[in-house]
């Protein structure tokens, strides 16, 4: 009887020792794997950086050169604007691909600079008002790109379809939401069912950001685009 108890005890201790050894070995293996993974990630980053520079050089030499010759030879301001918008998209994609992180205020600043320059080229005006209390939360690069594109598209619609001369953009926040209003003095669009690929893209981008977008008739004329985005979502830090 005693012998049975003893041998069971021995078996138990042996199993426990074996299990403990296996656990240590597994932990060591995990540590190795993690170290290996971070080395791989660093190597991948290196490859990505090289790849990015290669893509950048290609973009520069091929596409931007063609767009520039279009901008520099065309006499049609709308054609020039179209080429400039594409070039601006390129700039965004390149800096996005470079993984340049941006905070909300940085991204809004870039949007403001670009929109002002663009309206200047088109002979119009841009009025920008921004609440001084806006939080400077981190914005995922993808989100920055979407926000940029939504505003760019809204300006395109106002200028190309609404023949607007002046655009006013107001940025504010309330209840952890960012509110962006883009008003123009154009002849207005059908606010009930704005059509076209541009507005579809704007809806899709807004949905990706978890926000909402609406088109309203502006007073005394023109259109107002109201964009509302959750700020909490944007403050989620992206892993560096």
């Amino acid at each position, binding site marked *: 009887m005693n012998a049975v108890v003893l041998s069971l005890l021995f078996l138990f201790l042996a199993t426990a020792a074996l299990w403990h050894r296996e656990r240590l070995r597994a932990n060591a293996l995990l540590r190795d794997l993690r170290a290996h993974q971070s080395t791989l990630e660093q190597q991948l980053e290196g490859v990505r950086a090289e790849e990015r*520079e290669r893509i*950048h050089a290609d973009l*520069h*030499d091929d596409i*931007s*050169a063609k*767009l*520039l*010759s279009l*901008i*520099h*030879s065309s006499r049609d301001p709308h054609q020039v604007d179209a*080429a*400039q918008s594409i*070039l601006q998209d*390129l*700039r965004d994609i*390149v*800096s996005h691909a*470079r993984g*340049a992180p*941006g*905070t909300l*205020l*940085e*991204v*809004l*600043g*870039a949007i*403001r*600079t670009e929109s002002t*320059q663009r309206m*200047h*080229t088109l002979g119009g005006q841009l009025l920008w008002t921004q609440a001084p209390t806006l939080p*400077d939360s981190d914005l995922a690069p993808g989100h920055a790109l979407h926000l940029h594109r939504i505003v760019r598209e809204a300006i395109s619609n106002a200028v190309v379809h609404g023949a607007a001369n002046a655009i006013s953009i107001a940025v504010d926040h309330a209840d952890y939401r960012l509110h962006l209003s883009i008003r123009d003095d154009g002849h207005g669009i059908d606010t009930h069912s704005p059509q076209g690929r541009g507005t579809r893209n704007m809806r899709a981008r807004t949905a990706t950001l978890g926000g909402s977008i609406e088109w309203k008739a502006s007073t005394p004329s023109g259109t107002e685009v109201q964009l509302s985005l959750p700020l909490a979502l944007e403050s989620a830090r992206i892993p560096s």
Partner: protein
Amino acid sequence: MTSATTVGTVLVVEDLAPTRDWLGRAVHHAYPHAHCQFADCLQSARVHLLEQLPDLALIDLRLPDGDGAHLIQTLRAAKPTATLIVPTVFDDDVQLLAALKAGASGYVFKDHTVTSIADELQRIRAGKPPLSVPLARRLQRLHAAGSLALTPAEASLLRARARGTPVHELQAPDSTQAPEHLIAAVYARLCNQTLPVSNAV
């Protein structure tokens, strides 16, 4: 003071013909009486430089026979008062940063209008260069990494610009100095980083 801002001779180095014409029109708009010469590669630019060192030069970086930054370095050393401007497409380009390090005074966007490029040329000539948000961020990273020594005023200006504050709203703590002059000071510092630290003010 007037002699420092008078522009008698200009050199435009750009390989793409429509862009070269575009930049030439901007130069003419800004300085109608200046004598403007054109080059489409480093080699041809060097031939011009042998004859005359321009007061103002627009130097493209990606030239068929090499990097325009070399030309900027040469010109900066030969004529410290010259205004050397980089026409660019990408404002957070590694090459633009290298050009500023080589001694460029500022940059203009090739895709901007002739009049707005002309305005920029005059502003840069007056010591008021632009600073884009992406470039400010890049410079801030350099500063954070310890590779760009700045005064507290310059560092705080860079930080505000990186956060998107428009240049005219940037406030220099010392109100006698325009924010643009501080930007020019940052560029000058960037160029002088290659010199021994004892030379830095």
